[in-house]
């Protein structure tokens, strides 16, 4: 087991998906204060799709990344602030601005087979003095040996930590164990784990990652995140305390934050309901959930069929535009079937 487990909160980044990127600055500050008070070491603050995610495709946020980052920096005493960046969406330019605004940790995310599009960003981030993390998304889509090859690339660019990112919440327990174990055996840098609760394995898989020696794990208050949400932070901390694993994090402020601040903000409950379950079942990027529900309503097709078809077409993170495309194809099929 590693020296001290680092918990990276994602309530203010992945959680943005659950509110269609509409947190107010005050809400972000209130959540950040609780996390900081509890002793959470890293708090990620960005549009759900990372720096510069503001778009039709992913949703326009209530405030810019820099406004959110500055607001959170103002209220945290001990926590480091992280930002997410997806090459292809955000650029090094925005990474530099985030650095100026006081971001300490940059997490550079790519689809699990495309690590080399992040080389420039990771190298530049290290030169700038960031705590630099590589984030291999949709890690369920390729076998462990291939995932490990990509992780070695990320490490070779200079990242201090490589994440196994289960963006679809589709990894089973053995699959999680195998991946973390291989990373710990073969990499010199830290290993991280991020997941979604779509198959109800949010806490279980995160605990497995910790058992296998993960150095960093992601979680969010009340699981606030895309799809069925992330590993719920307060539950994870309670379990880790029962397991006598030292996190130096206090439980009560997290429970208060989850119950009193975060849960009341959920316009749509963040839980493993039918559509969220389908994400994990079909292996679909979790942030497709709300976009799919909107397209389903607009075009009158079953959201479960849309999600299954997106999985069948092997769509990856960021391809939200294909949801409308699939919905229209299904509508056309239904219409022609009726005509027959």
């Amino acid at each position, binding site marked *: 087991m590693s020296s001290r487990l680092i918990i990276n909160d994602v309530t203010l980044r992945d959680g943005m998906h659950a509110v269609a990127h509409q947190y107010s600055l005050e809400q972000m500050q209130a959540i950040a204060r609780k996390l900081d008070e509890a002793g959470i070491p890293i708090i990620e603050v960005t549009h759900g799709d990372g720096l510069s995610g503001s778009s039709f*495709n992913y949703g326009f946020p209530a405030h810019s990344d820099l406004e959110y980052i500055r607001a959170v920096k103002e209220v945290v005493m001990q926590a480091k602030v992280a930002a997410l960046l997806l090459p292809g969406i955000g650029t090094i330019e925005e990474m530099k601005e985030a650095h100026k605004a006081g971001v300490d940790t940059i997490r550079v995310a790519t689809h699990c087979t495309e690590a080399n599009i992040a080389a*420039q960003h990771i190298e530049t981030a290290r030169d700038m003095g960031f705590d630099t993390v590589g984030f291999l998304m949709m890690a369920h889509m390729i076998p462990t040996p291939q995932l490990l090859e990509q992780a070695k690339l990320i490490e070779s660019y200079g990242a201090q930590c490589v994440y196994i990112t289960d963006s679809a919440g589709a990894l089973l327990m053995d699959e999680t164990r195998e991946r973390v174990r291989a990373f710990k055996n073969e990499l010199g840098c830290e290993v991280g784990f991020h997941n979604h609760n779509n198959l109800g394995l949010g806490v279980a898989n995160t605990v497995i990652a910790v058992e296998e020696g993960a150095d960093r794990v992601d979680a969010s208050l009340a699981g606030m995140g895309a799809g069925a949400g992330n590993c719920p932070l307060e539950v994870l901390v309670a379990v880790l305390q029962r397991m006598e694993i030292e996190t130096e994090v206090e439980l009560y402020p997290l429970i208060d934050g989850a119950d009193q601040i975060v849960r009341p903000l959920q316009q749509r409950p963040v839980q493993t309901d039918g559509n969220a379950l389908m994400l994990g079942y079909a292996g679909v990027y979790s942030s497709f959930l709300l976009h799919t529900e909107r397209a389903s309503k607009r075009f009158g097709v079953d959201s479960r069929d849309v999600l299954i078809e997106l999985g069948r077409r092997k769509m990856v993170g960021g*391809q939200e535009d294909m949801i409308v495309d699939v919905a229209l194809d299904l509508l056309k099929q239904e219409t022609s079937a009726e005509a027959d």
Partner: protein
Amino acid sequence: MPMNCAIIGSGNIGTDLMIKILRLSEELEVKMLVGIDPESDGLARAGRMGVETTHKGIDGLVNSPLFEGIDILFDATSAKAHLHHAPILKEHGKRSIDLTPAAVGPYVVPVANLTEHLDAPNVNMVTCGGQATIPILWAVSCVAPVIYGEIVASIASKSAGPGTRANIDEFTETTARGIEEIGGARKGNAIIILNPAEPPLIMRDTVYAFCENGDEKEITESIDETVARVAEYVPGYRVLKDPIFDEQKIAMPDFGEYHGLKVTCLLEVEGAGHYLPKYAGNLDIMTSAALQVGEVMARYMQKEVVDN
């Protein structure tokens, strides 16, 4: 009499362009393919097709007896290499059609603005995503004021070469600028996604144009007409669905709140399968658009010669 051209860069793009010119062009004759790797498949292919080659890069080209007779140079190397080539070519009075993101000369998307730049000594082909999506934004701009234009380009992982991968920010930044400068949007935004699915997926592009106001019928007609014109030089270019219209309010941090009409257009670009596989529509649209620029420029230059 066709005009003489040469291609610098014997990688996928340069080789595909060479084959396109040999097979399709009436206005251009390829005199030379310029590479730096004597072992490259592109140079070997050129040799078999009867095209002269050099593996000594720009120096090999300039020192070749063929150089004097060459009018137009296509540069399919890298931004960095083109910054080195551009002044040399200009000094020798050659025209450059630049397929790299160097942007030494003005951006050109044939259907939209080629006629404005026929005298330019150096023109730039923006990006693959730009060639695919800017025509749609331009088509909307022709009939309605576009406040904001956004595009999502999805390409097969196998079609993204090392140059694109090492410098993916160049794609988003250059495409966004092209959306503004040629597409006519007050603000542009570009996103690129690499998808590793097998068999590889054909290039897909989604264009969002947000207009102050606009007539749905006029916009649809303008898009249809433009797509047909692009398809004349990129045969695999097509819209997959009718444009989707949403009247809505948007609020963008740092840009403002607007009420208007959102137009969503879903496109596909299938390659011709000359040197590159058909799914690589992103590469095909670059070489096809560059060929179109070369053809029109060659016709224009010949007319100039005759007029003088």
